[in-house]
């Protein structure tokens, strides 16, 4: 019973060290634990896959730096898929950090020979959250008169024929909070009927599922795990896939902590009861 007492009073810093090792070791020496592509990720992959070369897809990068490790790999994987299919991609952001994440992806694509203004454009940031999304839906150029490089948005070749949100073949939204799927569904999907697919931070997964099940979203990705699945679906494993072993080991460590914590708690409780 003394052991249970000690177990229950374990210094939290020891738990941090165990967790850090559990996560770090598989990153240094990958174990190749298997995981399958979920039907949800397949749906997202299918939504991008069925677009034709030259179709224009919107990527609204609305995640913060804090949640980026969970969502950015999703956006990267989907953008790579879009480039592989020769789609045209328009980036927008309704949170300030989104602009830089869009720029990062664009710079990487430019290195492969794709052309800014023809294959993709970053229209930058628009303030106003839901109001801005609503304005964007009605007229793209009202909240985004210029792109991040100072060009008049309307003059860029990629923007030819684009006027409202209805002109996109697919809208994809990546979010860690507000604005997120709810705002896009309210202001764009319901009005313009453009297919909307979302990638969200893991925490938002359960609450966003309701929109997917009701058909308001055509596809949904949730967290790093979904990004890894998407990379596997594309047959192009990347950083998210490499992180899956670490994530699995981290979960095992946490489950063990919860189980041992409960054993210690109930053990101590029954000991006190006997007294």
């Amino acid at each position: 019973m003394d052991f249970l007492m000690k177990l229950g009073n374990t210094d939290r810093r020891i738990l941090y060290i165990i967790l850090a090792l559990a996560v770090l070791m598989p990153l240094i020496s990958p174990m190749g634990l298997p995981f399958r592509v979920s039907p949800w990720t397949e749906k997202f992959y299918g939504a991008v896959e069925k677009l034709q070369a030259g179709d224009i897809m919107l990527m609204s990068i609305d995640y913060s730096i804090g949640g980026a490790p969970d969502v950015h790999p999703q956006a990267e994987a989907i953008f790579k898929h879009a480039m592989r299919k020769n789609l045209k991609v328009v980036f927008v952001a309704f949170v300030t950090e989104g602009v830089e994440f869009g720029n990062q992806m664009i710079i990487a694509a430019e290195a492969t020979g794709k052309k800014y203004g023809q294959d993709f454009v970053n229209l930058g940031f628009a303030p106003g959250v839901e109001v801005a999304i609503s304005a964007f839906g009605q007229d793209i150029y009202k909240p985004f008169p210029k792109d991040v490089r100072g060009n008049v948005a309307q003059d860029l070749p990629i923007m030819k024929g684009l006027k409202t949100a209805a002109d996109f073949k697919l809208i994809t939204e990546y979010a860690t909070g507000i604005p997120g799927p709810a705002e896009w569904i309210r202001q764009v999907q319901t009005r313009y009927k453009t297919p909307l697919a979302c990638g969200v931070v893991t925490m938002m997964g359960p609450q966003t599922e309701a929109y997917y099940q009701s058909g308001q979203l055509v596809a949904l990705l949730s967290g790093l795990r979904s990004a890894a699945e998407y990379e596997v679906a594309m047959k192009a494993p990347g950083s998210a896939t490499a992180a899956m072993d670490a994530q699995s080991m981290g979960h095992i460590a946490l489950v063990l902590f919860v189980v041992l914590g409960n054993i210690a708690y109930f053990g101590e409780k029954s000991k006190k009861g006997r007294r």
Partner: protein
Amino acid sequence: MSTDLGVWVAAICTLAMFTFLYKDNTVFRTFQHLYVGVAAGYGIVFQYKSIKNIAWDPLTKKGDMLMLVPIILGLLMFTRFIKGYSWISRWPIAFLIGLGAALSMKAIETDFVRQIQATLIPWNSIDNIVIIVGTVTALTYFYFTVKQNSLVKGASTVGRYVLMMTFGASFGNGVMGRISLLISRFQFLFTDWIYIIKK
């Protein structure tokens, strides 16, 4: 090991944040303030650019006088700092609240009608039955204005378990998200800073 100054700054910032895991300390607090300051500065630059592109340039270069409305409303916000005139700042706030409320009206359709429609499904699969029973019992848990007979009590108890399972799923997702953050930092530290993990 990286020779990039930016990578070193990011690595030092990351390690400073990790020091909190040992205990609260001055290094952690210093870098926390630094982070808040940088984030605020970054945000102000983008907001300034947006105001210039969306309102100021159309007003001054194209003569779009309508832009005076948001500019004046925005400036009125600052009356909050002027003693005796702070009440004027309520006008733009009232405008914003009105606008927000109007835009949110769409939620009646998207979050209410469509979600109810989504539960009007045939009882022909386990998934559908779980959705219907889960929704009805969870709502029953919050139904306080009816006599608590055995049927309502039973449904309410089931609803409580449904809610607990939902919270459990949210907690699990939360944990998963936090582990992702840790992985990302480790990937940065040991891939971009110290070359221990192969790219």
